[in-house]
């Protein structure tokens, strides 16, 4: 037999030995068994799987720090009850009593470690009364009621700047804020008023174009939605649903009169469709709640209708 063949024979038998020696170890480990060399017996064990957000946290089991960081797997645990603690500097600790079952894995894979208070950051740089978040535009708008000034910043409070003032007639404090889809206009709403502010040049308030205030003293405003054309807005009050142009002297077009003062309203911006609930009297004289769908997406027809209605109104 040549030298190569001798080496090959040794390698072959070594491989066979490794396979048969390693297989019981791998299989018992995979199936959740641990070999006890003292008793020469296999013991059933369990597993704890840990994943945290953020990762790299210390793991304590029954108060003892383990030599691992998350994400981690604690293998070969004798079944029973344990107390698990996850700690990461600058974050609140996560503590949980856990019951490890034989040949099973207990998964804690959605742990969020929340930052402790030291991470809280003040965003506003001046006195403010309220704020709104424009997630899509990555902006925060702030309102100072005492001085009637509107500010904006990015989501980290950076680039904090004044963008204009709100007319003094707009009172009380706006309860809601809606920005148009073209991000050119801003609606401020309180119980009886809608104020349209024109934003230009990447979100700055244009002083050249004055703001417009719509007063609805005899109605309670429930909600306001921008139409996708960013020119009309839909006003839902306790009495009716109207559509208005976001311009001075716009004549409201009444779309629906409502019986119910405060009904559920949803507006699908993508399809320009309003869903609302109202009651109607049935043939039996009883009142029934119904859900209605009002499509405002056929822009051409809608605009034609508006023009026609306006002309009628002017006459």
């Amino acid at each position, binding site marked *: 037999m040549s030298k*190569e*063949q001798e*080496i*090959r024979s040794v*390698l*072959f038998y070594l*491989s066979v030995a*490794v*396979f048969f020696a*390693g*297989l019981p170890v*791998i*299989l018992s*480990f*995979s*199936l*959740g068994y641990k070999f006890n060399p003292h008793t020469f017996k296999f013991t059933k*064990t*369990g*597993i704890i*799987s840990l994943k945290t957000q953020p990762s790299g946290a210390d793991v304590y089991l029954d108060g003892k720090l383990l030599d691992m960081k998350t994400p981690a*797997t604690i293998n070969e645990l004798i079944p029973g009850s344990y107390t698990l603690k996850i700690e990461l500097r600058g974050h609140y600790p996560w503590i949980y009593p856990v019951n490890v079952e034989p*040949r*099973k*894995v207990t*998964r804690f894979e959605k742990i969020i470690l929340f930052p402790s208070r030291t991470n809280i950051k003040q965003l506003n740089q001046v006195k403010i009364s309220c704020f709104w978040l424009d997630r899509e535009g990555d902006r925060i708008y702030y309102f100072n009621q005492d001085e009637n000034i509107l500010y904006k910043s990015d989501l980290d409070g950076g680039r904090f700047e004044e963008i204009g003032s709100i007319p003094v007639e707009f009172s009380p404090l706006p309860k809601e804020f809606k920005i148009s889809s073209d991000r050119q206009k801003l609606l401020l709403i309180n119980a009886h008023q809608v104020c349209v502010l024109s934003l230009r040049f990447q979100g700055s308030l244009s002083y050249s174009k004055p703001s417009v205030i719509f007063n609805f003293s005899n109605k309670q405003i429930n909600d306001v939605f921008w139409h996708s054309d960013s020119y009309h807005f839909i006003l839902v009050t306790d009495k009716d649903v109207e559509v208005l142009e976001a311009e001075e002297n716009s004549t409201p077009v009444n779309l629906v009169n409502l019986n119910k003062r405060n009904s559920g309203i949803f507006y699908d911006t993508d399809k320009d469709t309003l869903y609302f609930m109202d009651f109607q009297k049935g043939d039996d004289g009883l009142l029934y709640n119904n859900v209605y769908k009002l499509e405002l997406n056929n822009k051409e027809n809608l605009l034609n209708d508006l023009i026609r209605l306006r002309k009628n109104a002017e006459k």
Partner: protein
Amino acid sequence: MQKNKIKRFLEIVPGSLSWGIIIGLILLAIFNPVCCAIIIIIFDFYWIVRTVYLTTLLVMAHHKLYRQKDINWLIKCRRLGNQSGLDKLKHLVIFPVYKEGLDILRPSLKSIQECNYPKDKIIVVVAFEERNPLSKENARNLESEFKGYFFRYLSTFHPDGISKEGRTKGANATWAAKRAKELLQSAGIPDEDVIVSCFDADTCVAKEYFGCLSYHFMTSPNPHQASYQPIPVYNNNIWQAPSLARLVEISSSFCQMIESMRLEKFVTFSSHSMSFKTLVDIDYWPVDMVSDDSVIYWKAFLFYQGNYRVVPMYITVSMDVAYSNSFFKTIQMQYKQKRRWAWGVENFPFLVSAFLTENEIPLLKKIRRSLHLLESHVTWAVWAIILVFIGPLPIILGGAFFNQMSIGYNLPKITGLLFNFTFGASLAWIVLSRIILPPRPKEVSWTKNVIMILEWIMVPLIILILGSLPALDAQTHLLFGKYMEFNPTQKSKKMV
């Protein structure tokens, strides 16, 4: 009749086993995922150990190839003295050709013309198929270029439609060998003084090939009871070939190198050499089987009642990488070539049915060789499918119960370990592949060096598409008795 039934039964065995394993594991994954996972873990671990073992053999084979690459074998032969029989030894080289053109044949013949061995000891036979309309013209062209350089140069034309013959390479080679026998008889050269080499049309021999072959033949005990197998590499156009084709062929060379270290299992493959006397004694190559290169070994094995072996020669014969200028066509070509190789599964019914009527070979040897043949083909058909496709099935199909068990948690980790391990091993393969690579041609950019390293990330894709599927396809054909015809791989040097 009974014999036919047994042979048919044996044809069904490999395909049934492969499909049985695949379907069985899928059903287990659905109905008993724990059991399926245990089998997959055993298989994964077996594959890790096997990868280490085979990679070590590959390193050893490479080392041997590297060590022997500068040997002047002809001088070594001459040092053996007059009694060695070198002077009377003749080399008969047969190139069975079908559609291969002059661009393929010319470099092959030129490599023989340029080899370091006396040309007056070499007989070249270019064996054309008569049914190819270009064969006469090609023969004339080659004769005008090469006829005067060798002891004898012969063009043969294998007629189509001979009774009991298939359209196989073996039929053509046999026809050519019989014509060569007539030529040798007329020249008064006995069969035992001739070594026959049957080469694919694109085979370019290394300069020292015939010296190396002569040396091994003269120094082997019972030289007529052995085939002589060089290491096939696919270097002719390896720099021009696309990544996918190149990787597949490098892997094929690696497989052969590994096999060359496992002598008790070593079987002839592709271009190889043997005693012409033995070839005549065993009635030449099979004329109706596709896998003639391996069947010839088994015929000799049976003829010599099990006392026949393959002697590895650590010298290369270089062939063309099969590829096309379209990615999908390359996959198709490679797939067909691998399926043809995998059709070697037809050796199993051939061998076992022959063993049943053979009484001289020890039973243990028969069982060992049969089982190895069966195991190698079944493993070829299922391993990649198990690793890539069935491996994740228990987790996908096992449901919440399985996934909360320890084994459900550990299975993907062990499978991941296997893939990491394979990736580690492939780093060794990348280094080794550089050793058998020819120098980069000037017209090929240096960036190809980088591509040739990065392309190894395609290994998982290749092992599935060109690893198991062609073998499973071939076994399924045999299972249903749909016999394959010899389908030569289209090769051309013009595709760059």
